[in-house]
C-alpha cells in the first residue's frame, strides 16, 4: 500500500480568528493515499484548526484544498463527506438517547431504513474489526464504544480520508492498541488517516509519517521510522528539550494522610472503592494507576470531602503528630480545620474553574471567604495572585480579564494548578494533571508538582500515562475495579508490572 499518490493537498492555507493571532499561516501539507499521518504540535499550534478546515467546520481565509488533483471548496461537513473526508472530533457529537445505528444514520438523506443501515454497519465492523452493539444507547456506552460509533459513522458515509483528533486521550492502553489495529486495517484498505496526538510513542507505533506544526506554521515532515522521539520533540518545540522527568529523593517522609478501609458506593449502589487502605507521606509523590473508572476519581473526591463515603477512615496527621478525622467533613470544614488541602480535579472548566469568569475571579474561588469584611469580597488579593500566576507560570493570555474558557488547555491547567499551589498545600491531589497538554506544558506541570513535593506536601497523583507514573512517582498504588492490587516502589517497578496489576483483581 505504499504508493505515493496524493489524496489531499493543502496549499498555502491561512486562517485568522478575529482578535487572536494567526491560527494557520501559509500551511502546505500533503496526505498520501493509504498512509497514516500524525499531526504533531503544541497546544494552540493550529492542528485542529487545520483539520477543521478540511472537514468543513471552518473555511480558510486564503489558500487551496486539492483533493485527488482537483481544487475543491468545502463549505460544510456535508461537502466534506461528499468528498470522502470524515473527522472524529475530540468531543464526541452523539445523541445520548439514540442508539448506535440511529446516531450513525442521523442526518443522512434519503429514506430511513434502519434494517439496511444495520447490515451495512455490521459489514463495516466485520471488515475492519470494530466491535459494536448497534442497539445500545449512547448513554450506556463507555468512552471507547462511543468513539467506535463515531468512527463507524464516518466510514458509513464513505470516508476515504479519516481525521482523528486525539483519539487516544481517553482510552486505556488496551483500547488504544485495539484502535491502532483497526487503523492498520483501514490503512490496508487504502484509506488515508490523519491522527492528532500528543503521545510520541503512539506516533512511533502507528504512523508512517509525522508532520509538525508550530505556532500555526508548517515546520516540516519526516518518516516516522527515520526519526526519534527526541527529534520530534525538538522540532515541535523549536529548541532542544530534556525529556527526563526529575525525581528528587523525598526529604523526611512522614505519614500525612492515612486512609483506612475506605468503601464508597455510587448512587446506584455499585461499589466504586472497596476497602481501600494506604498512607500518603509528606515530601513524596504517591501515584495512582488504574484503568479509567476504577475508583481513582472517587478516591480523590473522598479525600477532598466531596464524596459520600459508606465506611472507612481518612486521617490527617499534623507535623506535631496531632490527627484530624477528615471523613464526613465538607471542603469548607476541612479548610476551617486548618488542613491545607488542594485539589486539581480532572474536569478543569466544569469543576476546578468557572469558564466564564476571568483569571482573577477564578483565583477568588479559594479565597473569597477570607478578607477583612464579612460582607464584601476582597478583589485586590486575588488579582495580585492572578498576576503572579500569569507571570511565574507563563500563562499565555491577552490580559487578566479574559474568561478562562478562551485560554488553551495548557494555560487553563496552569491557572488551576497555580491557584491550588498558591496556598502552600500540605496535601495536593491531582487528577490527570497533564491530560491533553503538550510536552512543554506537561513538563511545567511536573516541575510544579515536584516543587510542592520539595516543600513537603503529600502529593497524590492520579495518572494515565504509565511511563510518566514510573518516572515521576516515589510510590505507585494500583487500583483495579475499586480495590488496591498493590503499592509498588516507583524506582524499581516498570510499566509492564503496573499494566498487569491494573487488570488483575486484588488478592488481599
Amino acid at each position: 500500500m505504499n504508493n505515493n499518490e496524493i489524496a489531499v493537498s493543502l496549499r498555502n492555507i491561512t486562517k485568522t480568528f478575529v482578535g487572536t493571532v494567526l491560527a494557520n499561516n501559509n500551511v502546505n501539507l500533503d496526505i498520501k493515499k493509504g498512509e497514516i499521518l500524525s499531526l504533531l504540535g503544541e497546544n494552540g499550534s493550529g492542528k485542529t484548526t487545520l483539520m477543521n478546515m478540511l472537514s468543513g467546520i471552518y473555511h480558510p481565509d486564503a489558500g487551496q484544498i486539492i483533493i485527488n488533483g482537483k481544487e475543491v471548496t468545502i463549505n460544510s461537513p456535508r461537502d466534506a463527506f461528499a468528498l470522502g473526508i470524515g473527522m472524529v472530533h475530540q468531543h464526541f457529537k452523539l445523541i445520548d438517547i439514540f442508539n448506535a445505528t440511529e446516531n450513525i444514520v442521523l442526518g443522512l438523506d434519503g429514506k430511513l431504513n434502519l434494517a439496511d443501515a444495520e447490515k451495512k454497519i455490521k459489514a463495516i465492523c466485520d471488515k475492519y474489526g470494530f466491535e459494536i452493539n448497534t442497539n445500545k444507547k449512547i448513554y450506556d456506552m463507555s468512552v471507547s464504544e462511543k468513539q467506535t460509533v463515531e468512527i463507524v459513522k464516518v466510514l458509513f458515509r464513505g470516508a476515504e480520508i479519516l481525521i482523528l483528533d486525539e483519539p487516544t486521550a481517553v482510552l486505556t492502553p488496551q483500547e488504544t492498541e485495539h484502535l491502532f489495529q483497526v487503523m492498520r486495517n483501514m490503512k490496508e484498505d487504502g484509506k488515508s488517516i490523519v491522527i492528532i496526538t500528543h503521545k510520541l510513542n503512539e506516533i512511533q507505533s502507528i504512523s508512517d509519517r509525522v508532520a509538525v506544526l508550530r505556532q500555526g506554521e508548517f515546520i516540516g515532515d519526516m518518516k516516522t521510522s527515520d526519526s526519534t522521539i527526541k527529534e520530534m520533540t525538538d522540532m515541535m518545540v523549536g529548541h532542544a528539550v530534556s525529556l527526563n522527568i526529575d525525581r528528587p529523593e523525598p526529604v523526611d517522609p512522614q505519614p500525612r494522610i492515612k486512609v483506612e478501609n475506605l468503601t464508597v458506593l455510587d448512587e446506584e449502589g455499585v461499589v466504586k472503592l472497596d476497602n481501600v487502605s494506604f498512607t500518603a507521606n509528606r515530601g513524596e509523590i504517591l501515584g495512582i494507576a488504574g484503568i479509567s473508572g476504577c475508583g481513582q476519581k472517587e478516591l480523590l473526591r473522598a479525600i477532598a470531602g466531596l464524596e459520600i463515603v459508606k465506611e472507612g477512615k481518612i486521617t490527617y496527621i499534623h507535623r506535631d503528630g496531632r490527627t484530624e478525622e477528615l471523613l464526613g467533613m465538607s471542603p469548607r470544614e476541612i479548610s476551617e480545620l486548618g488542613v491545607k488541602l488542594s485539589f486539581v480535579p480532572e474536569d478543569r472548566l466544569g469543576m476546578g474553574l468557572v469558564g466564564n469568569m476571568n483569571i482573577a475571579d477564578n483565583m477568588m474561588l479559594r479565597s473569597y471567604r477570607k478578607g477583612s469584611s464579612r460582607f464584601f469580597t476582597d478583589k485586590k488579593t486575588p488579582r495580585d495572585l492572578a498576576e503572579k500566576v500569569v507571570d511565574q507560570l507563563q500563562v499565555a493570555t491577552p490580559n487578566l480579564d479574559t474568561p478562562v474558557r478562551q485560554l488553551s488547555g495548557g494555560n487553563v491547567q496552569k491557572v488551576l494548578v497555580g491557584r491550588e499551589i498558591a496556598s502552600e498545600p500540605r496535601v495536593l491531589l491531582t487528577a490527570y494533571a497533564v491530560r491533553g497538554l503538550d510536552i512543554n506544558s506537561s513538563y511545567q506541570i511536573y516541575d510544579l508538582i515536584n516543587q510542592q513535593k520539595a516543600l513537603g506536601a503529600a502529593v497524590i497523583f492520579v495518572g494515565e500515562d504509565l511511563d510518566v507514573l514510573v518516572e515521576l512517582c516515589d510510590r505507585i498504588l494500583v487500583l483495579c475495579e475499586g480495590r488496591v492490587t498493590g503499592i509498588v516502589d516507583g524506582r524499581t517497578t516498570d510499566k509492564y508490572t503496573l499494566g498487569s496489576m491494573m487488570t488483575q483483581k486484588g488478592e488481599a
Partner: protein
Amino acid sequence: MPMKNKEPRFYISKRADADRRTAWTIRIIAIVISLIVCGIVTMICTGDNPISIFATIFKGAFGTQRKAWITLQYVAVLLIISLALTPAFKMQFWNVGGEGQVLMGGLSAAACMITLENKLPNAVVILLMIVTSLLAGAIWGVIPAIFKALWNTNETLSTLMMNYIATQLVAFFTIVWEVPKGSGKIGIINQNSNIGWLPNIGNKYLLSILVAIIVTAGMYVYLKYTKQGYEISVVGESLNTARYVGIMVEKVIVRTMILSGALCGLAGLLLVGGINHTITTTITNGQGFTAVMVSWLAKFHPIGMIFTSLLIIFMDRGASEISTAFELNQSFADILTGIILFFIIGCEFFIRYEVRFRKDSGKENA
C-alpha cells in the same frame, strides 16, 4: 457535490470576544433601524407621516410634566421587579414567579391597610405593611426554592404555578373585602383616613423612583462586590465548581430566592400602598413577565436595566398615545413594540457572531 468557485458570499463565525463598544454600536444601529422600519410600516398602514408618529410616541411618554412623571414611575416599578428577578437569574434559577410574588406583597400591604385602619397609628401600620409585604413576597419565592434545593424540582414550573395561586388568593380577598358589597372591587382603600398610604416625597411619584434608585445601586453592589453575590455567580455558572470550593449550593438557592421574592414584595407594596391604594388581580399588569425580558436584555446588569426598562415603558406609553391620537386601536401599538423588540433581541446575534463577506480569496500562483 460542491462545485468549484461556489463559495459562499459570507461567513458567520463566533466573535472571539465582542468588546463593549462594538456591542453598543450594534445595539444603537438596531434601534435606529427598528425606528425606520416602524416608520415605514406606519406610513404604509396609515399614510401618516412617520416623523409625526415618532413625535407622538415621545409626546405620549414625556409630553407633559405629568406624563413624564408617570412614565418614570412605571419605569421605577418595572425596574424594581427586574432587579428582584436578577439575582435568581444569575444563579440560573428561572424565577418566572414575579407576578405572584408582587401580588402577594401587594395583598399583604392591602390586608394591613384594611384590617388595621382604626386599630393602630399610621406609622405602625406602614411599618407592618413593609415587613409583611417583604415577608409575603419572600415566602412566595422561597417555596419553589426549597423544593428545588431539596428535591431538585423544576423551578420554572413551580414559580409559574405559584402565580396562579397568588391571583386566586387576591380574587378571594377581593370578594371578602369588597366595597361596596356586591361590586366585586375593593376600591380605594382608606380614602378618607389615608391610613397606610405611603408618604409623598416631593410629589406622589417620587417615592417609587427613589426606592428604585436605591435598589438599583444596592443590587449592583450586591452582585459585584459581595461574597454572597460572588457565590450566586459561581452557583449559576457551575454547580460542580460551587460544591468543589465548599459553597453550600442549597443554602445559596434558598437565600437568593428569599431576596428575590422580598424585592418583588417591595414592588407590590409600592403598587398598593404608594401608587394605586387598592388591589386587583391585574394590578401587576404582566410586569412580572415583562421584567424577565428587561433583565435578560440588560444581560443581568443592574445599570443596563435602567435603560431596558425605560425603553419598554417608553414604547408602551408612546404606543398607546399613537393609538388614540391617530385613532388606531391598541393592536397597532403592539405591532410597533413588536418590531422594536425584534430588532433589539435580534441584534444580540450580531453581537455574538460576526458576518464577514468574502473578499476575493487571494488565489495564489502569483
